[in-house]
């Protein structure tokens, strides 16, 4: 039954794309395409331990990326915050054909960046970057949707204030105000595994 649904979704997408065949057309059709994504993700998640958690602690693991090598397979990367492990799962034809696990820290997603910024803002005393925002913008920075944010994976050699990073999933934030100014965020990283801010101290 599942296969049949998948096939029909495919036909729908082919038809839609073929009509919009102009050189620079965007062929986005998220509604139809999300059905096979759901099937691929469901298969990939079946390879995770039952306790696997996402960045918010919900069951199912955090989706980091899907690569489509073009040979009919999908390589799904998920992070399990419960065990702090990355799972790389290859799905082909709805089946899991390979699954590998290791402690590596791939690039964070927008979901994780927003979660990390939320943690960085949830403090009684604002961090310097939030204080700088208030100074420039005239209002306090209280929510991630007031800025644009991306996050980079942050690992260490196991020493210093952020010694757990690498073992834990830590990120460094890059935050820009609506005016396009980047705020200085080099003095801290966010440990998403523990939901805490780690102070790195002044740059020099």
């Amino acid at each position, binding site marked *: 039954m599942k*296969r049949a649904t*998948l096939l029909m*979704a495919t036909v729908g*997408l*082919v038809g839609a*794309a*073929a009509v*919009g*065949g102009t*050189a*620079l*057309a*965007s*062929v*986005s*059709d*998220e509604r*139809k*395409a999300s*059905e*096979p*994504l759901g099937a*691929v993700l469901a298969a990939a998640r079946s390879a995770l331990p039952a306790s696997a958690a996402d960045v918010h602690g919900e069951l199912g693991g955090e*989706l980091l*990326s*899907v*690569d*489509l*090598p*073009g*040979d*009919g*397979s999908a390589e799904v990367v998920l992070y399990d915050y419960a065990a702090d492990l*990355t*799972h*790389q799962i290859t799905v*082909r*034809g*709805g089946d899991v054909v390979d699954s*590998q696990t*290791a*402690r*590596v*820290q*791939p*690039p964070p*997603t*927008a*979901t994780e960046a927003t979660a990390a910024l939320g943690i960085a803002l949830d403090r009684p005393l604002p961090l310097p970057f939030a204080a*700088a925002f208030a100074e420039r913008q005239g209002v306090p920075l209280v929510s991630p949707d007031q800025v644009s944010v*991306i996050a*980079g*994976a*942050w690992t260490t050699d196991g020493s210093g204030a952020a010694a757990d990073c*690498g073992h834990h999933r830590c990120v*460094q934030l890059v935050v820009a105000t609506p005016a396009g100014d*980047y705020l*200085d965020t080099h003095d801290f990283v966010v440990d998403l595994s523990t939901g805490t801010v780690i102070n790195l101290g002044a*740059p*020099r």
Partner: protein
Amino acid sequence: MTRRATAVTALVALLGVMLALPGTIGPSRAGASDDDLGCPDQLVEHDLPNGASWRLCARIHPVQGLRLESVEFRPATGNREYTGYRRVLDALHLAQLNVPYDDGVTVYDDITDYGFGGDHLVTQNADTCLGQTRPVTYVTSLTAPPSVKTVAGICLDEVATGLAFHSREWGTDAGPRFAGQGTALEISSLSKVSWYEYQQKITLDDQGGIDIGLGATGDVAPGNAPGVFFTEQPATGWELGPTVDGHHYYATSHWHSAIYRVDFGIDAGAEQRVEQWDYAAGGTAANPTLLGTATTKTNAFVASPSGEHARLTWWRVLNADSLNRDGHARSYEIVNDNPVDIARPVTRVQVAFTNAAACQQYASYNLDPGCPDQDILDYVAGDTAPLTDPVAWVNVGFHHVDRDEDQSPMHTHWQHFQLLPRDFFAQGPATPDARSCINGPGLIDSSSLPCIATNTTAPKVSASTSTIAAGTELSATPGTWNESRTTWDFDYLWFRDGEPITGVDDDGVPTAATGPTYVVGPEDVGRSLTVKVTASRPGYVSATAESAAVQVPGPTPTAQPTAEPTHQHDHDHAVPAATVIEAAAVTRTRAGRRGRLVVHVTSLAGVPTGRVLVHVRGKRVVGRLVAGRAVLRLPVLQQPGRYRMRISYPGSATLAPSQRVVMVRVLRR
């Protein structure tokens, strides 16, 4: 089989669909089928104007960005080198981008920490892509829950590369002159990682060369002063902007160390070899010499050359089982003359070679769980097998000292390396016919030592009887041909009223009147007979010459069961031979400018001369054929769009007229 079909179907749904885009770039309908490389939805196959072609699989990897696989080349010279495509690379991608700032405060690994795909991929538009786009499907986390998004993420373009070759034989312009303009297939994508934006651009040219470029644009690292990126230290930066309250602020200089993973697949060889060339000084002060030494590298290694001539050291990957026509092993060499950041163990490496391993995808902080957190030094240390399936980790360094001019939006700064064929072909893969016999020692002299067979006196036919009738034996001599460079073998084919004389033997197999003699038959009475002589020699370009017509006296038979439905031509003359017009299927120009069009007119019966005409939008231009080739300046077309262009060759006494319609695409100014 059923399983495979299902998987492919599911994938198509996830990928979105490759559009069959109009124009020059996209899966070619000619030749091999689209799925030969096993990536039907990611296939790029493009014929370049000189006749060369590239085909490969292209996609955007969520972390690596632009990734090419199964890269194969077909030369313009075709069968003179080899038929169809040969593999050059199995895979190519950016495996790390290390960005440390000179003040020691910050280091970014833009690939493994941030990634070039996913939500960092920038959508192409008419300003970023002058060619055609390919849809890229990825999972975005900007929606909750994550969803599939398809954007125009890859740009494919055909670009001019300038004068590809020029050779003037004489001391003046009066003699033979050979020139060719080059083109290339350009594949690019854009990614934004905070203030920096990068264009990944891979240019595959019509001579088999590959240029791998990384362009950095966006903005200089911003921030308050004094801060991380603007300090008051002149030693680690460059002052941007005016003095503020007596303070000078310096934008911090930084490295972009781009390390590429190049998985070689020279002619799909099971065993490939890495060769290193080093140079040392010899001779005397008055007569210095430079001596090269080749070393076959038998195991994985890291190269950080030192010494006086270290920068001359280079590497190539060869397949000893794949020989070009000269018996030389096919190879590609790495051309990389960029500086390296010697402050860090990974980036001080100029190049490392390992055996291909699927889990080794990144130069440092490897993300694949099969070899977690390893770097190229770990790969080399752990690789003890003989080096037969080489992957090169090529470090392309760029040290950026900001300039006032780099301020927003930053003028793109580039770092490149090249992969160039070395003995992949026996000659240049676009060598013109007239130079096709120049291979090794020997004189270049198109006038008295031409590479093309040249007839100077037409073939002659003599008869065994004074009156030609059925039963008369005709004998042909080949006439006179240039034989100063080589001698020729001659083949003969007899014609009746301009049509080859054919028959069928007792077994029903078609036959033809070949050989230097021909016995006149009853069916020849009242008709005109000629012989065409073709001069050939391996390694040279053949040519054909035709004798004068021999008329067989007598009434023309009225009922000719084998005759053509209509004979439009006077029997005293041979039927004009067919001609073929060749030109780029689509020519691109800019509105308000005059484009160029190269037209070739060919015929089996000789080299066409005279004029070719081009009609477009009621305008006409005329070009003169030189050696079968004409270069026309197109009329100015003011409006962007696509125009039909009709090329016509009016024919000559011996050659038939022909026509061809191609497109001209006029881009915005």
